[in-house]
């Protein structure tokens, strides 16, 4: 029996797929082309330098100002402050990196290039995944530069060795990747970079200063300490720090990475959905 073309009365004529001049690109190609585009920013020193210099500058200031912390009783004995501080810096750098994904997206939503992509025969998700990949790679590079600078200039050299520090970088990069999705979902919602920046600033402040990033939680005043102990950022910092200091707790590391994956699983579909709708 031969099947002929479906001519069911009343049904809307199925739209003939118009052959594209170039046949269309698969999702993988879309993502790689789009992330490649975002990574081209790497050739522009003006866009890359601040991201590298800022943490180094902060590192200089903090390592001087808070040196006295390492003399307090709550501080782990025999650990130099820079060894203690750097893993936290990797993690905090990731918050900024995540925020950058969101801000970049709102900027492009406003200058129209996102509208162009949305009117093209490509997946909406590719645009976001492309950005996420590019920003994650960029973040990775920034972290490694920071690590090298800390080792060469500030005498960073924790007991975990190179492997431990790379483990800390991994935790930070995974965290930055997941926060990137959170901020991209937010950006599709608020739409304006001016609106996203302050939100990011507040999130940054709360998550950071009420955590064990700069001083051990035990050294904080009561109420702040209570928050620091439940602050997810504290877990990420602990995971990164223990890795760097050579006393990794598998449970903390897995919990941190697992949380990040859960965050992305929840926020990525949200981001794609609201991004599709936002004009």
């Amino acid at each position, binding site marked *: 029996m031969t099947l002929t073309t479906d001519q069911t009365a009343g049904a*809307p*004529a199925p*739209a003939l*797929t*118009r052959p*594209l*001049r*170039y*046949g*269309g*690109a698969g999702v993988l*190609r*879309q993502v790689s*082309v*789009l992330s490649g*585009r975002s990574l*081209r*920013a790497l050739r*522009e020193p003006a*866009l890359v330098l601040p991201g590298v210099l800022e943490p180094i500058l902060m590192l200089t200031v903090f390592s001087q100002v808070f040196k006295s912390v390492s003399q307090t009783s709550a501080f782990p004995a025999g650990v130099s402050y820079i060894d203690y501080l750097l893993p936290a810096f990797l993690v905090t750098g990731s918050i900024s990196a995540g925020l950058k994904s969101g801000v970049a997206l709102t900027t492009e939503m406003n*200058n*129209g*290039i*996102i*509208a*162009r*992509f*949305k*009117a*093209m*025969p*490509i997946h909406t998700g590719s645009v976001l995944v492309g950005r996420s990949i590019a920003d994650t790679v960029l973040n990775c590079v920034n972290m490694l530069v920071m690590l090298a600078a800390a080792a060469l200039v500030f005498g960073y050299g924790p007991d975990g060795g190179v492997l431990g520090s790379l483990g800390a970088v991994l935790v930070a990069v995974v965290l930055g990747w997941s926060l990137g999705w959170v901020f991209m979902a937010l950006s599709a919602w608020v739409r304006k970079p001016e609106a996203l920046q302050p939100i990011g600033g507040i999130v940054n402040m709360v998550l950071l200063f009420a955590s064990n990033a700069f001083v051990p939680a035990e050294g904080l005043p009561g109420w702040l300490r209570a928050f620091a102990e439940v602050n997810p950022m504290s877990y990420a910092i602990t995971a990164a720090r223990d890795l760097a200091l050579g006393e990794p707790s598998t449970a903390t590391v897995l919990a941190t990475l697992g949380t990040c994956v859960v965050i992305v699983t929840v926020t990525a579909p949200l981001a794609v959905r609201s991004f599709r709708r936002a*004009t």
Partner: protein
Amino acid sequence: MDTPMIELTDVTKAFGSTKALDGVSLTVPHGTVLGLLGHNGAGKTTLVGILSTLALPTSGQARVAGVDVVRHPEEVRRRIGLTGQYAAVDETLSGHANLLLIARLLGATRAQAASRAEELLELFSLTDAAHRAVKNYSGGMRRRLDLAASLVGDPDVIFLDEPTTGLDPTARRALWDVVQRLVREGTTVLLTTQYLEEADVLADSITVLSAGRVVASGTAEELKNRIGHRSVSVTVRGADDRELAAAALRRAGLSPAHEDDGLVLTMPVRDSTAVAQVVRATDEAGVDLAGLAFCEPSLDDVYMALNHSDGR
């Protein structure tokens, strides 16, 4: 081809209590240009947004090449090119890289993408600037690149949202040439503009939008007929001739008028056949004319008249 390439039926779009579009219907046949005229906030960009699948209509139906934009947006995207109101190109990349990017996203191989990019840069006279970053382009160059980017995939229908706003006359004319060439090759174009001359030159038919409603549509000719400010003016050589000519024209049933001591007599007429009548009357009066002109109403007149009649 019989299916209209663009078809809107009673489309509305509400933003809260604002009705950006309020029951718009229009049709654009294959291979023609529709000029969408309207002042700020008339709903032009909203309409383009719906047709290019960026926004959903609140109610009504919109089809592009026979495909419903709500039900099969992915099919619509295979057929359209969008040049938005604000140039949508990547500032950090060169013009060449921008076109390469679009071509690659459409599935072109590196070689195909490069040759398509060069072809389009050539078409828009951007070859010299091909490898400069777009952020150093002038407004006109950026606009041309933007249009080039929307042509990479050879779309059946292109949407141009105020494509020549901010361009100098030369750049504007160059862009018009490209649009005319596309249309000759069978592309269907919907173009929004604030420039009446632009619609007059490019559009096969014109739709005037005001506060989300269609207030007039037809060919430029039809719109002009509706307003009908056609006139003939003659220039005489002196005040005496002027009085002689005016008297003769009045006897012929015309109503000439002139500025206090001007030498130009202007009179409204029904159509161009009145020119003969004017010549005969002045000739019989023995007046030697220094000049004679038949004036079509401009779209400006149409536009003003329509916008006055809806209370603006």
